[in-house]
C-alpha cells in the first residue's frame, strides 16, 4: 500500500470522527431552530426538520414588549457586571500574580470558597438584603451578585495570564524611574490586554448564563433577564401554545453567543485552559 492512499484513508477516518463531533455539538441547536420555525399545524409531527417554515413565532416574541425588555436587561446587566468585574479583578489578579503582600493566600482562599459555595445558599439572604435596601428587582440587585461571583473566575484566569508576562520589562520601567503604579499602568496593563479580553468573554458568558439569581432576585420585567424570562414564557397570547415561541426566543439569545464563540474560539480555549494545568 502506498503512503498516499494510507494518508487518504487516515484522513477520511478523521473526517468521519470530526463529523460525529459536529453532530454532537449541533443537533440540539438545529432542533431548537427547527422547532422555532414550525407552524402550529405541524408542531406535533415529531419530525426533526420542519416540513413547512414560518417566521410568525419570531414576529410574536418581538410583538410584545416583555421579551425585548428582557433582552435589554440581559445585555445591560451583563455588560456592566463584566466591565466592573474586570477592572476590580485585574487589579486583584495583578497583585496576586506579581506582588508580595500579607494575606495573599487568604484572598485566594476566600475567592476559591466563593466559587465553590452553593449559590442556592445565598439566594435567601441576598433576597432579604436586597429587599431591605430597596434593590430587589433592579439592575443593580443583579449586577452586584454577578460581579461577586465573576470575581473568582476573573482573578484566577487573569493571574494565570499575568504570570506569563515578562517580568524584566516591568523592572526596566522601574529602573527608568517609574513607580510601581506607573509600571502597572504603562507597561504591564497593555501587555495584559489579550488576557483581560479573554477573561471578559468568559465572565460575560457566565453572567449571560445565570439562571438562579435571575429567577430569585427579580420579580418583573424591570430587571428579569432572558434565561429567567424564558421560563415564564406563556406565548404571545394565552391561547397559544408557548412551545415554538420559547424555541424562537431561545434561538434569539443563542445565536449571538454562538457567533461570539465562533469568532473568539482561540481566546476562549486559552482562557479556560490557562493556568488550569501547568507542570
Amino acid at each position, binding site marked *: 500500500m502506498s503512503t498516499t492512499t494510507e494518508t487518504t484513508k487516515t*484522513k477520511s477516518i478523521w473526517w468521519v470522527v*470530526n463529523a460525529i463531533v459536529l453532530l454532537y455539538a449541533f443537533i440540539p441547536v438545529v432542533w431548537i431552530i427547527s422547532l422555532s420555525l414550525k407552524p402550529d399545524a405541524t408542531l406535533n409531527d415529531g419530525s426533526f426538520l420542519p416540513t413547512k417554515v414560518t417566521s410568525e413565532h419570531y414576529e410574536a416574541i418581538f410583538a410584545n414588549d416583555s421579551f425585548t425588555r428582557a433582552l435589554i436587561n440581559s445585555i445591560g446587566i451583563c455588560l456592566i457586571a463584566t466591565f466592573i468585574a474586570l477592572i476590580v479583578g485585574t487589579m486583584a489578579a495583578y497583585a496576586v500574580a506579581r506582588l508580595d503582600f500579607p494575606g*495573599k493566600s487568604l484572598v485566594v482562599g476566600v475567592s476559591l470558597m466563593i466559587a465553590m459555595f452553593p449559590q442556592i445558599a445565598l439566594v435567601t439572604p441576598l433576597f432579604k438584603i436586597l429587599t431591605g435596601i430597596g434593590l430587589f428587582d433592579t439592575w443593580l440587585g443583579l449586577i452586584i451578585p454577578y460581579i461577586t461571583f465573576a470575581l473568582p473566575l476573573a482573578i484566577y484566569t487573569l493571574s494565570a495570564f499575568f504570570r506569563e508576562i515578562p517580568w524584566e520589562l516591568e523592572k526596566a520601567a522601574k529602573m527608568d524611574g517609574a513607580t510601581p503604579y506607573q509600571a502597572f499602568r504603562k507597561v504591564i496593563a497593555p501587555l495584559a490586554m489579550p488576557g483581560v479580553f479573554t477573561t471578559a468573554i468568559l465572565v460575560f458568558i457566565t453572567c449571560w448564563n445565570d439562571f438562579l439569581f435571575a429567577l430569585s432576585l427579580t420579580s418583573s420585567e424591570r430587571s428579569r433577564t432572558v434565561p429567567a424570562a424564558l421560563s415564564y414564557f406563556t406565548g404571545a397570547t394565552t391561547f397559544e401554545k408557548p412551545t415554538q415561541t420559547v424555541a424562537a426566543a431561545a434561538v434569539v439569545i443563542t445565536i449571538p453567543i454562538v457567533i461570539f464563540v465562533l469568532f473568539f474560539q482561540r481566546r476562549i480555549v486559552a482562557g479556560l485552559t490557562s493556568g*488550569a494545568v501547568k507542570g
Partner: protein
Amino acid sequence: MSVTAPVDERTEDESAAIARQRHSEGKKAERRLGLMLVAPAAILMVAVTAYPIGYALWLSFFRADLRTPDDNEFVGLDNYITVLSSDIWWKAFGFTLLLTVVSVVFELILGMALAIVMHRTIVGRGLVRTSALVPYAIVTVVAAFSWRFAWSQGIGWLAGDSAPLTGQWSSFWIIVLAEVWKTIPFMALLLMAGLALVPEDLLKAASIDGASAWQRFWKVTVPLIKPSILVAVLFRTLDAFRVFDNIYVLTSGANETSSVSIVAYNNLMRGLNLGIGSTMSVLIFLAIAIIAFIFIKLFGAAAPGSDEGRR
C-alpha cells in the same frame, strides 16, 4: 520564571546596608500597593457573601417562616433534625449523588475522547475545536428547553409516542444527557491542556518499543495528565452536585427527580420557609466541602488555584 525569592536573596547578598534599606522600602511599597489593588475585590466579595453566609447559618437555627412572620424563634438544631429525618431530603440527596457520579463518569470518558480528537485530528482542527465549544457557550436553560421539547410526547423527534419526562428513571437519564452534553467541552478543554504537555518523543519511543495505542494511552498519557484529570473531575463534581437549571426546566423536580438545590429552592422561594431552606443550604455547602476535602486528601488533587499562592 515568576519566582521572586532568589532574586531578592541575591540582592541582599550583594548589596550593602543602604541597598538593603532601599530594598526594604521597596518591599513596603510593594506590600502597600498589593493590599490597595486587592482591597476592592476582597471588600466586594466579603461584603456580598459574608453577611449572607452568616445570615443563612443564623437562620438555620431559627423557625423562620415568611407565612408566619411573628412566630420566629430560636429552635436550636430542630431544623437540622427535621431536614435530616425527612424523606424528601434524603431522596433528593441520593438522586443528586447518583446524578453527580453518573454524569461525571460519562463526562470524563467522553470528554477524554473529545480532547483526543481535538488534539490529534489531522483535518479540520479549527472546525472541530470551534464547534466543540458551542455546547459550553449555549445558555443552559436554552439547551434544557431543547432537550425538554425533544423528549415531549407528540412534539419531540426523540420521544415519539412515549412521555419519558413523566417517569423517574427515564427523566434521570434525560437529565444526565443534558448535563453531559453541556459539559463535555469544558472537561475536554481542561484535558486537552494536559495532553499538550505530553512529550511526543515519549509516545514515539513507546511506540517503537512495541506499545499499542491503547497501552500508550494507559501507560504513558494517563499517568502524565493525571493532574489535569483530577482538576477537571473535581471542578465538575462540585458543579454537578449543585445542579439546578437543567432539572428546573426539564422536570421541575417532579416524579422524585429533585436535586438538593431544587428542594432547597422550593423551600426558600416557593414555600417561603427560610429556616428549613437555610438549613438545607448549609447542608449542601457541608456536602460540597466534604467532597472537595475527600478529593484533595484521597487523590492529592491540587485544590483549584492552590498553586496560585505558592508560585
